[in-house]
């Protein structure tokens, strides 16, 4: 079963009286456990597609199925609940809550579960351990480097054990070394923890880490099977 199945999706924004077609009948299938990189120029619709997959936006027409759930059939409340369980979102600018410590930031999605305070804390610490920041759990975001902040954000994305991780230019705000570390981490999550990852990136070096690269041009997917994809399929 495909982890992500986007079928004939159109997304049209209205600006004043003008209609702007961002995605135009796009279809995309991401098999379970895959690591897909979405590339393309600015305005090609990469982030919009990612938002649709993450369930934070809705298509104008077409269907989006993630982990077997048709997102179009869910109400706003159901969609929020679904996001908390099924999707881990990694932002370009980390978006940690500045007043919370690293472990409290990671714990945030678990507040929506029925776990006890102790269980929440244990899981958050485990997630921080996975990203190699267990010793920084009491630090506030302002006390961390960019790379460390992004690792905390990744820990927050994986703490509820979602099936799919979506990352919107996760290395876009990082120096080369930190970007390398983040990409290594994403690869580890994909390989060892079997997470399906859909990553938007402008950076070809980041895209190289994915098994599949997809290029978007003006809201349409240009099919490009890379060597890595062929190898992965084999």
């Amino acid at each position, binding site marked *: 079963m495909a982890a992500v199945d986007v079928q004939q999706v159109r997304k049209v924004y209205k600006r004043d009286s003008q209609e702007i077609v961002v995605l135009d009948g796009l279809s995309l299938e991401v098999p379970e456990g895959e690591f897909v990189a979405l590339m393309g120029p600015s305005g090609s619709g990469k982030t919009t597609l990612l*938002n649709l997959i*993450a369930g*934070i936006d809705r298509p104008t027409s077409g269907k989006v199925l993630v982990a077997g759930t048709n997102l179009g059939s869910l109400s706003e*409340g159901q969609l929020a*609940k679904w*996001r*908390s369980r099924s999707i881990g979102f990694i932002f370009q600018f980390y978006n940690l809550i500045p*007043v919370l410590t690293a472990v409290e930031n990671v714990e945030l999605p678990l507040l*929506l579960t029925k776990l006890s305070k102790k269980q929440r804390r244990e899981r958050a610490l485990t997630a921080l351990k996975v990203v190699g920041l267990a010793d920084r759990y009491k630090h506030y975001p302002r006390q961390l480097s960019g790379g460390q902040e992004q690792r905390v954000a990744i820990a*927050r994305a994986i703490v509820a054990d979602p099936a799919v991780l979506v990352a919107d230019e996760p290395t876009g705000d990082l120096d080369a070394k930190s970007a390398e570390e983040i990409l290594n981490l994403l690869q580890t999550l994909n390989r060892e923890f079997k997470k399906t990852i859909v990553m938007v990136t402008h950076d070809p070096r980041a895209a190289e880490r994915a098994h599949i690269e997809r290029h978007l041009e003006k809201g349409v997917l240009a099919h490009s099977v890379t060597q890595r994809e062929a190898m992965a399929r084999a």
Partner: protein
Amino acid sequence: MKYLPYILKHLRKNWIRTLSTILAMALCIFLIGTLQTLLRAFYGGMDRTSTERLVIRNRVSLVFPLPLSYEPRLAAMPGVKRVAKVNWFGGGVPTATGAPDMKNFFPNFAVDAEPYLTMFPEYGLTDAEKRAFLDDRRGALIGPDLAQKFGWRVGSVFQLESTIPPYRVGRPFEYVVKAIYKVDRQRYPNHSGSIMLFHWKYLHESTRQRSQVGTYYAQIANPTQAAAMARAIDSSFENSDAETKTETEGQFLAGFLALVGDLALILNSIGLAVAFTILAVSANTMSMSIRERRKEIAVLKTLGFSSTLVLTLVLGEAIVIGAAGGALGVGLSALLLSHAASIPGFNGFGAALVLSPALLVAMLALSAVIGLLSGLTPAVSAYRANITSMLRQV
């Protein structure tokens, strides 16, 4: 409750803004609570009036006296049980200059003690205490609050100088405390503990019998006939030199209080204006706070926080500010009122200045409501906010 630490952390982040909003809210609640308590004290006399008691005064004005000769005529009227002369003395403890100290003013009356005390069971006295007071021409009956404030005990001698010219006789009046009445807060919750009574005869003799009668109090047999009795009394003095105006005690007090204007309207308007201002201030603070955190709200929603939960968190912050301000305001108000007796100019209303439990609950509820209302607009805005547009805006 698991979200409370999250709410508190946000409030702590901008602690100056949070603290100033809490203080503004506290000031609002403090003012409303204190003003309402003063109002209650001021109008408290209305609650302790009896329909058995009629007050007869000069029709022209309260400042004009009535002749002494009216007493037997009133006492002889059918339906009148007893009559007592009551004069407002308007005295204060003389200062070094001899002028009465109006900063420590308290109500004091010259009364026909025997009928007056029979009409007013509010003054709790044993027979022995009553007798001791009645038997001494210079005797004074004082309230427990006066005893505490001035350190007077039974046997203490003190002086009062009146502000009313006919009662200024070239030297202060001297009194001996003969009894301290008790206030039964269960039966007469608004009865003052700051009143002083002395003998009308003492006033009359000290002024060389020049003083006339300020008001007559008449106790009637049938309270349901109060209006008819009042009309009968007034008609019997019609076309005389001093026509009368007879009212029930409640009507008399209402008219007396009206002399200072509609205090309730003035104080309630102040309270309302303050509450409205604080609501605007708090709403502005909350809006600023939430506007600064649009990105964070988008992140919370992305993580799976429902719109309703986000709305609840924003309202939670506003309510915490409201509740903290309310609690502080109630505390400040209670503190001030508990020391009111020692604050000059605060004890003239007669009734005890106590924050009633009902008012306390109302003040806390008001602060929570102001908090809730101040958070409503930003909370609804956070509820409605679209994740992608918020992420794009930042």
